[in-house]
């Protein structure tokens, strides 16, 4: 936790929920805001009253940003099984092409729920069938559940997913655009 003018706000992955993690990233990617506006929006979202920033010196403001960013190293180990509301949700150690494709769609939609929906796709309830895992209503339900989980759960997956999305998407595009001249029968 970080204290800003008497307000304690979460900053570590174990303190932030997945929903907060998504919202903060969504603000970061908002092209209509400048850097200072983005940070004010983030602090406001995490519970600090806007009036706190009215008379704040820039040096103090930069210090707050530095304090908020002063976090322990991000967790790297994936949690492969979690229990929520009495049900066990399991993730595989490596991500398959269907899950990555579905996550790619979420990424492109930029709907502000990327981390929560990524977890909803990756974690599958152990008592359900494959078809049930991917039913839109079930994904929506799981997204709501995972929003309340700590963001430390999603970070190891997000790192891998973004790496794979960037790398393999480019490789696929390269493969598709490769110029081939000889006809083939």
């Amino acid at each position, binding site marked *: 936790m970080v204290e800003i003018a008497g307000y304690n706000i979460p900053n570590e992955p174990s303190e932030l929920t997945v929903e907060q993690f998504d919202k903060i990233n969504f603000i970061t990617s908002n092209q209509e805001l400048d850097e200072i506006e983005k940070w004010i929006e983030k602090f406001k979202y995490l519970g600090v009253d806007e009036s706190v920033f009215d008379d704040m010196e820039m040096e103090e403001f930069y210090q707050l940003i530095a304090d908020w960013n002063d976090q322990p190293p991000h967790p790297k180990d994936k949690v492969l099984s979690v229990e929520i509301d009495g049900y066990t949700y399991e993730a*595989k150690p*490596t*991500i*398959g*092409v*269907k*899950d*990555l*494709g*579905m996550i*790619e*769609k979420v990424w*492109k939609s930029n709907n502000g729920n990327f981390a929560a929906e990524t977890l909803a796709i990756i974690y599958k309830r152990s008592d359900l069938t*494959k078809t049930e895992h991917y039913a839109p209503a079930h994904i929506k339900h799981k997204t709501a559940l995972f929003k309340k989980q700590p963001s430390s759960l999603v970070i190891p997956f997000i790192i891998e997913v973004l790496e*794979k999305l960037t790398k*393999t*998407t480019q*490789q*696929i*595009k390269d*493969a*598709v655009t*490769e110029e*081939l001249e*000889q*006809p*083939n*029968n």
Partner: protein
Amino acid sequence: MQLPKNWNSLTTSQFIELKALKEEDFGSLFLYNLEVLSIVTDTDPEELEDLEPEKLVEYIYELNFLRREPSKSATEVINDLHFKPFILIKFGEFIDLEYYFSNDFVNNLTSICALCYRKKVVNEWGVEEFEPYRFNPSDRAHLFEHETITKTYGVIPEYLKFRSELMQSYENLFMPDVEESDEELDPEDLKEEQEEQKFKKWGWEKVIYDLAGEDITKADQITDLPLIMVLNFMSMKYELRV
């Protein structure tokens, strides 16, 4: 996983399925390519879902031939049915081919093949004769579904080439559409435009009706005439304004 190495390993129905896929409908490069892989390997998509993305990339490289066209020359014989040269087609066959080609020729490929590949006999004069066009091509379409695409695809470029030459030879009949204009038309031009639109809607029916002397019972006689003969006749009527 056994991947096809070239178009020879894929059937016509696989080709049609592949061409019907639109990447934008999937919203994901991975999901689209997963479906492609499922079609070309004839595998249930569920069995491929856990494939590693890197492996998918490898497969896509191996399937690069999919981005080229299959063989462009028409096969002479398929399933004991013989390719009927386009120069010999009847007027009715041409009208149906035009319909198939203007309504997604890849999706209609098997029906196009059914129309173009026919039984053939040598008559008492030693002349080869193709069976008459007395069947519905869609009833025979199944005969071509499992044929390799390299056998069936050639009919498409062959017909497009024939059609292009035909359009050139009978330019007076197949005039290009006049460019649409934003200008307001005077009543006379408007009437002409409306007539033109009506003709477009009823194009071939109107031609048959006129050539049959406005006697609908003679329509079959007109559609059974050789295409080239009909076009020559139409050209003459057009030139002489008769």
